[in-house]
């Protein structure tokens, strides 16, 4: 799909990594492999699809990797998530033009899953891509209408970066150093 290719090109130019998976199970396999490369001992999840979570958690069990998932008790936070080397979340949709993932959270515990750990893995379904940044505006309005009280929408376009020293680019300050996207093809 052209939008996915456009997204991938852009996300990779921003130093992110894009993977494609054929279904939740395959996505879990890819996620496990990323965790292995990151030498992860603990992984924190946000709200992810049940089939993905089941396969992923089993794989982690097999390699002795701890998995923490919602619901998070308040008094274990933020430490429980800071202790994870990888955070896995799901994007509601993605923007092809700008290489942007759009996460929606009503619980900040889930929000920090894509902030605190060094490696971030984000799942997105291949049907959930829009073409341009401006296309996101009406979607956001709807999201805020659907959630009448608190709601946080997060745009994520690659790993964390700064140019504050001599305008030279560096990654991983203070958010994730690595940002992976797994595009799940539901066909």
């Amino acid at each position, binding site marked *: 799909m052209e939008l996915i290719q456009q997204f991938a090109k852009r996300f990779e130019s*921003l130093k992110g990594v894009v993977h494609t998976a054929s279904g939740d199970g395959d996505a879990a396999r890819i996620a496990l492999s990323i965790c292995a490369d990151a030498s992860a001992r603990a992984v924190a999840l946000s709200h992810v699809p049940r089939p993905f979570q089941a396969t992923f958690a089993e794989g982690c069990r097999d390699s002795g990797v701890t998995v923490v998932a*919602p*619901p*998070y*008790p*308040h*008094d*274990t*936070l*933020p430490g429980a998530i*800071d202790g994870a080397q990888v955070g896995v979340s799901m994007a509601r949709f993605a923007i092809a033009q*700008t290489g*942007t993932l759009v996460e929606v*959270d*009503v*619980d*900040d*515990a889930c*929000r*920090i899953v*894509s*902030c*605190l750990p060094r490696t971030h893995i984000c799942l997105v379904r291949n049907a959930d891509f829009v073409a*341009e*940044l*401006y296309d*996101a*505006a*009406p979607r*956001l*309005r709807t999201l*805020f*209408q659907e959630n*009448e*009280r*608190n*709601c*946080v*929408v*997060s*745009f*994520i*376009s*690659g*790993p*964390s*970066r*700064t*140019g*504050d*020293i*001599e*305008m*030279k680019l*560096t990654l*991983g*300050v*203070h*958010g*994730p150093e690595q940002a992976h996207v797994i595009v799940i093809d539901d066909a």
Partner: protein
Amino acid sequence: MSDEHITKLKEDIQAAIADPTRREALYTCMKRGRDQRANALLDWPGGAAFREDVRAAKDRCLDQQDELMQRFIANAEQRGAKVFVAKDGPAAIEYVLNVAKKRGAKTVSKSKSLTTEEIELNVPLEEAGLRVVETDLGELIIQLVDERPYHLVFPSIHKTAKEVAEIFTKATGKPVPNDIESIMGVVRPYLRPIFLESDIGLTGANVGVAETGAIAIETNEGNARLVSSIGDCHICVMGMEKIVETMEEAMLMVAAHPLSATGQCPTTYVTWMAGRSPMGEGEGQERESHIVILDNGRTAMREDERLKEALRCIRCGACMNICPTYGVVGGHTFGHIYPGPIGIPWTAAVHGLDAASTFSPLCISCGLCKEICPAEIDIPLIIAEVKHRHMKEHGAPKADRTMMAADRFAWLGSATAPVSNWFLKNPLFRRVLENVAGVDRRRTLPPFSRPTFTKQFARRTVAQPAAPNRKVALFIDVYANYNAPKLGMAVVDHLMRAGCDVSVPKQTSSGYPYIAYGDLEKAGAVARRNVASMVLAAREGRDIVSPEPTAAYALKKSYPSLLPDSEDARLVADHTYELFEYLLMVQNGHDAQPLKGRRFGFHCSCHQRPLGSGEAAMEWLRKQGAEVELIETGTCCGMGGTFGLKAGPLGYDLSQAVGQHLFEAFLEADIEAIVSESSVCAIQLAEGTGIPVIHPLELLQPPQQG
């Protein structure tokens, strides 16, 4: 004394010029910012067209500000946020202190907020016993050395990696190597515990959205995500002018801001936050979000006819990236708290006219900031207004008064030529002139001619074309009238040979120096006089051209802004053409190639940028057979009209520093001469490079006189 406010400024300029390492670092960064933006716009749909949209959206929302603010507050409160409208800095500070006290807070982590710097929030918080830590890396660096921001977007851009390593060595007590990667390896663990333990997370907001009651916070680092999530108490301080109505308008700002600042779109993270989310499950979390909407002079700005446009500012810093004098002296000299061109009106509005006047003279009125501003703010005119207000109270410095009267000196110089030229070359006379009038003795001044162009034109015997296909009114301005009448006659000759009937209506010089130095009363008077005369020509169906780009710019851009209610000014502007734009239109038959084999470097003067950027002149030269290369740094040559004539640091010295890289670029190019339409840029480039500088029309054989 009208020169007092610039004594310290001159010292600071001298110190900045004398620091080549810092100058080189600043120049490189600013150029990178300009180039990255330009490259990004090549790919962005519509290129720079979004500027019009930003301007329109901002104007609309500012008009409805009161209503939008009420809607924002209602929606935000409905979602569970607490909103406080602070009439000034002290009110905002008191509110934040009360929240901190009620919560028994000990540590405040901050993501970047210029608005909190505007009101100097950190100091009273620290005095109340709170630990306040900036988490934006640039802000953290300047916090650790107790300095003010050097640039809106890159507050620590003046610090080299080596200096930053030293700062963190001191802060951590462990030696930090000089490379950026090692520094980051230290910064991350330094700040991580602070993110995790903060009681209060304090953010700014780039936009407030009325229709949803949400704020948008942009960062590249992700620090705002951490600051706005972990600490149980979130506080946002936001200027009231940041509020827009719709998500569409908000998205436009979120795109325009980083595109203009660094060529990114969007920033790595944008957090759209409404209400206050819990942190995991469990009762009794006591999580709060407070939004402090700051006035601090913004309502007064809305009622200030000239200054209110500055409220459109989205804090991108592009004006700084292109400003020639900022690019040499940086934000500590060119700023108070808000730096750069837009910092002048903002400082005047929120920190006072005196504070703004400590750096407003650094504006040389090149107009480049206006061409790059994503909200199309007429920054040069607003700066002129700030200068004007100061001048009304304190008078103008001596050198400025000389330059505002430049056309009268030119008249005298021409009337007494060639004796005047002898004086201008006499070192003793030049020393006296420097002391008395503030004209730098080192500056080579173009010689004066007699008789003036106007007289020569009146005496000419060659008849106008019998059946002219076009009619032209010539606006001659200072140089072609008093120094180079042959150039004026060449313009007339080219136009007449192309079948134009040429007239020279009654006129004075453009009066642009009055704008540059801030005498807007005189600038308006000159504009009215010239418009009254030129409009008669326009109504006669005459097109208006000028051999001097600044004069064309004055007619086309400045006069309508100075006289916003004048239909005549608009008519004159509509009839004004850039000279070579016009020549290309009226001349045909370029079979002879008189300039074949010649190689030139073209210099585009700043005032030409909105008039076609010299493209027409280059095309015209190429039609004559010449090879032409545009040579530029993306910013001014440093002359700034008459600015480079002024003696010392706030004039000649600074202008040389600005021009340095451009001089080098011309010297490196394989060209035989520099071509420029601007008489004043020509002075600067000729002196700076030693290469001959010629007006395009002077390149051809002198036409028949008569």
